[in-house]
């Protein structure tokens, strides 16, 4: 129990500090010219990595499961230019349905 509170305090303080670092160090000022090309690509690189890890990752292993069905259905919805709400609901619903049936 004390371990839990110690973990909560340390993880909380650490996370708050990590999140605050950038905005406190250079908040409100444009990033240095040389960095802008790099920063522009951070969103595509990180978002794509999140897609891949959240669709395939399970602890320290790659697992192909019902999440991929949801992601495939979401891709179709995106291709049909569906709004984001529909994309997210389609992904969850097709994954849930696959889990129910298979």
């Amino acid at each position: 129990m004390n371990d839990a509170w110690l973990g909560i305090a340390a993880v909380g303080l650490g996370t708050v500090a990590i999140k605050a670092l950038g905005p406190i160090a250079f908040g409100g000022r444009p990033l240095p010219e040389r960095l802008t090309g790099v920063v522009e690509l951070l969103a595509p690189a990180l978002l794509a990595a999140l897609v891949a890890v959240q669709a395939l990752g399970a602890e320290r292993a790659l697992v192909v499961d019902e999440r991929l069905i949801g992601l495939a259905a979401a891709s179709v919805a995106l291709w049909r230019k569906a709004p984001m709400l529909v994309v997210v609901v389609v992904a969850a619903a097709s994954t849930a349905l696959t889990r129910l049936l298979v």
Partner: protein
Amino acid sequence: MDASPPAERRRRDGVRAAAPLAVAVAAFGVSFGLLARAEGWGWAAPIVMSATTFAGSAQFATLSVLGGGGTVAAAITSALLLNARYGPIGATVAPYLTGPSWSRFLHAQLVVDESWAIAAEGHGRYNPRMLIGAGLTLYAAWVGGTALGAFFGEVLGDPETLGLDAAFPALFLALVVPQVRERRALAAALLGAAIAVALVPLVPAGVPIIAATAACLLGVRRA
């Protein structure tokens, strides 16, 4: 994306964009509260953690390392590795957070993957009002969901049965697609995903995502 500036987007647009996700976030908050309760954390500890850390994966990591008999040091390390990505992410939004340092400090806490992605307008631009609207919505959902789970989670069921774990990759896919219209951005996305997938089996959770940020070095400008 296009040359004309987008219509002025407000906080409530951020709230609206985050609303569908808030349902999934709340459901995972419920399971965090429930699992923490089952580990003997009581009801206060999970709620305090959700309110102060506000980062789902790191919280689940802390819980599972401690629950699996790991040391506090191991739990803290794995959680902070998972959250290390908020260093570079914070740097990307920093130019758009104006105001005194206490306000930048508070707004920075609303940055999570989802609110950051919703606030992204492409070409490295971020809309702070979208960030705040989406961040507050998700914060309320996460802390509220945790409280529900800690008090009466048993009745609410497992979010995976509802397919909610597939909602997150779908959201990030929906948000990355408009960002990869240019060849260089597409290359960075593919490289980032490849690095992350290749590393998942080899290194602790969190590290693959951090390593994937190396893909943005494709954007280094030659002097």
